[in-house]
């Protein structure tokens, strides 16, 4: 852990305890971690203290615990106990070697350590790049421990001279909703509540942009006759009202203009939801679930990594894709080419061409939110 952490880590005496019992800071008592020893040696120690610690490091628990304690005085839940009992019976029968139960034990310790650090980690917005990296590494390791599978979580920062913008061609959209399903799959949204970031509003020709009479939940063949379609999602406003109201700065605007959320820092007050004039935010009312085989394993900390219950989430212009120079999933999935995404600061980008050559407009401009999401027609 670096010295200049910007958050507070509760010290409940665990570190002291681990010193006296000789296990190292990573919680791995099997001695596979030697970082701690180096740290210890670097500190200035009195001779006695050094001797004490050296003994600890060498024999650790065995000095203090007798055989009974080593075997039986281990905290475990019923399921673990049952597993171990079965395992030891099998060992007795010579069916499996004992090493499985040892790795299992170290895994659960590491898991507990990860859970502990996760509970008390800081706000991503205030982390240094190293802290971001280690947070992301921890999450990947956690997933590996729990499911045995690997995911890739990125902590890539905004690039310089990039400001993302989006344009939507109302004439082209036919309401197929490929963007909606691509978004759900890309961003690992809860399948049970059918959470969707994008809403496609079906409007009647000749009535203008009449959202009141529009239907954003249609189930019929499209394009329906005499109707046109208009998509809404988070507009990544340049002056986002949702950001100011957050009491804990769990949501903010990144350098490249993306309005993002630290899911683990969010306290779930839903003030941002009330403050958003564009219905851009979603809340996890219950534990979000995605079937294991449908999880998109290419993730970003601020993007599509797995959320928990009771936190906000929203469209991030697919930060995990856009920061790698790719289009968001909705843009890629759109069969009509109604969606255009790009760098507003790049004068050669398509989005700039649209802004300069089309009659573009934005929704509720009078509110002063400055959305980076424009509509236009052919």
């Amino acid at each position, binding site marked *: 852990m670096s010295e200049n952490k910007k*958050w507070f880590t509760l010290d409940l005496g665990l570190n002291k305890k681990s010193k006296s019992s000789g296990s190292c800071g990573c919680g791995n008592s099997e001695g596979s971690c030697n970082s701690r020893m180096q740290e210890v040696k670097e500190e200035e120690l009195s001779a006695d203290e050094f001797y004490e610690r050296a003994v600890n490091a060498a024999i650790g628990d065995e000095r203090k615990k007798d055989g009974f304690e080593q075997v039986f005085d281990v905290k475990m839940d019923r399921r673990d106990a049952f597993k171990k009992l079965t395992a030891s019976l099998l060992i007795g029968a010579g069916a499996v070697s004992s090493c499985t139960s040892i790795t299992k034990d170290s895994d659960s310790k590491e898991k507990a350590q990860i859970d502990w650090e996760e509970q008390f980690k800081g706000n991503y917005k205030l982390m240094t790049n190293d802290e971001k990296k280690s947070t992301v590494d921890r999450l990947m390791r956690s997933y590996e421990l729990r499911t045995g599978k690997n995911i890739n979580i990125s902590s890539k920062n905004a690039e310089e001279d990039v400001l993302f913008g989006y344009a939507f061609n109302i004439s082209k959209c036919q309401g197929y909703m490929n963007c909606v399903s691509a978004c759900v799959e890309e961003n690992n949204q809860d399948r049970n509540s059918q959470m969707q970031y994008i809403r496609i509003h079906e409007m009647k020709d000749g009535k203008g942009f009449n959202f009141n009479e529009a239907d954003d939940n249609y189930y019929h063949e499209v394009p329906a006759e005499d109707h046109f379609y208009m998509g809404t999602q988070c507009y990544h406003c340049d002056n986002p*009202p949702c950001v100011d109201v957050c009491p804990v700065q769990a949501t903010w605007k990144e350098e490249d203009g993306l309005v993002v959320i630290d899911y683990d820092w*969010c306290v*779930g007050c839903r003030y941002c939801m009330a403050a*958003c*004039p564009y219905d851009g935010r979603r809340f996890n*009312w219950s534990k979000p679930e995605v079937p294991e085989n449908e999880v998109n394993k290419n993730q970003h900390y601020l993007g599509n990594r797995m959320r928990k219950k*009771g936190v906000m989430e929203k469209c991030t212009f697919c930060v995990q894709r856009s920061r790698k120079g790719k289009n968001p999933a909705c843009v890629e999935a759109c069969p009509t080419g109604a969606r255009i995404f790009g760098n507003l600061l790049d004068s050669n980008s398509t989005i700039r061409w649209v802004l300069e050559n089309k009659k573009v407009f934005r929704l509720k401009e009078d509110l002063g939110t400055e959305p980076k999401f424009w509509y236009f027609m052919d």
Partner: protein
Amino acid sequence: MGLFKVLKSLVIDSLDTITKGSKKYHIWMGALTLVILVGMYCYSIQLDEGLSVTGMTDRVSWGLYISNFTFLVGVAAAAVMLVMPTYILKDIDFKQAVLIGEGLAVAALVMCLAFIVADMGGPSVLWHMIPGIGVFNFPASMLTWDVIVLNGYLFINISIPFYILFRHYQGKEAKKKVYVPGAVLSVFWAVGIHLVTAFLYQGLQARPFWNNALLGPRFLASAFAAGPALIILVLGVIRSNTSFKIPNKTIKKIAMIVTVAAQINLIMLVSELFKEFYAPTHHSESAYYLFFGLHGKDALLSWIWTAIPMNVLATVILTFGKFRNNLKVLYFCCFLLFVAIWIEKGFGLIVPGFIPGPYGKIVEYLPTGIEVGVTLGIWALGAFIFTILAKTAIGIELGELKYKKKEKS
């Protein structure tokens, strides 16, 4: 330390007082405990399953909890209406009532904080909000202002009565020099808590129903009507059940406050209705939904049309001194006013803010049983706390609880 000895004796004495009482008292406390337990059970379900067990959705994302929170901030602020005449204008009439009023404020604030916690998606990470170890988005977020003013007000309202009672417990007079500055501060603070709570909603350009300049003043007017109305009812109960003397004169003075505040509140209501319905704009749709329903959706209609006549009736009756001075009529009016404002300022204010949604979608909100259970539990918790505080305070004021200096046993 002598003070600690007195404090210890006070705690023991008050524990003694609050565990003894008439049969009625025990039934009251038992019933409250039962409701609290039911509320806790409901909350445990909510913790386990998530807020999906409530009626709230992405479309209406605040409901019964925030409604009650908003209303109770007003009740808490109303204590100031008793504090000001007593400590600052030196009107001796209120002296007996003011301790009750401050006790009520403490109970109301505890309920407010409980409602906020109940509404949180992640109560286990609320430490993120604590300055120093978390990130406190002050002064940008009005919610952080609210956290400051509510907790500050809670501190003031605990410390002033505690100081006074602590002195009286020892048989000494409370020193004016000590508590009057606190009382003066609390007057401004009370206006602050309610104004800040109103700004919480008023500052959202996304919700035209809330985004109007009258919201703050109207919050104050309705608070100074509903809060003292509740105090009158409570004083009535205390008068008939204990030997604590509250002269008619005191109650009538408070009734005057209630009347004036209710009248101002009514004027503001008329002003609001005029604005919404004389030249209706797109922004009047929430008001239309509240009062008349929109596209056949009319869940709030029966509520608001119960509240408005109750409000008007109570205000009109109270306006006439002849009726107001009749205690039975007064109690009835106070009850009407209290319920009417609870409806109006509770879900009559919060829910229509979300309907219709940002794009005109109308999805209605109905609280679930679990939500109602948690709400009742928190109200019972408030009543429980208030009863304990009031019983101890009354005991000390009546001289039943007294520090015995040379007691050996």
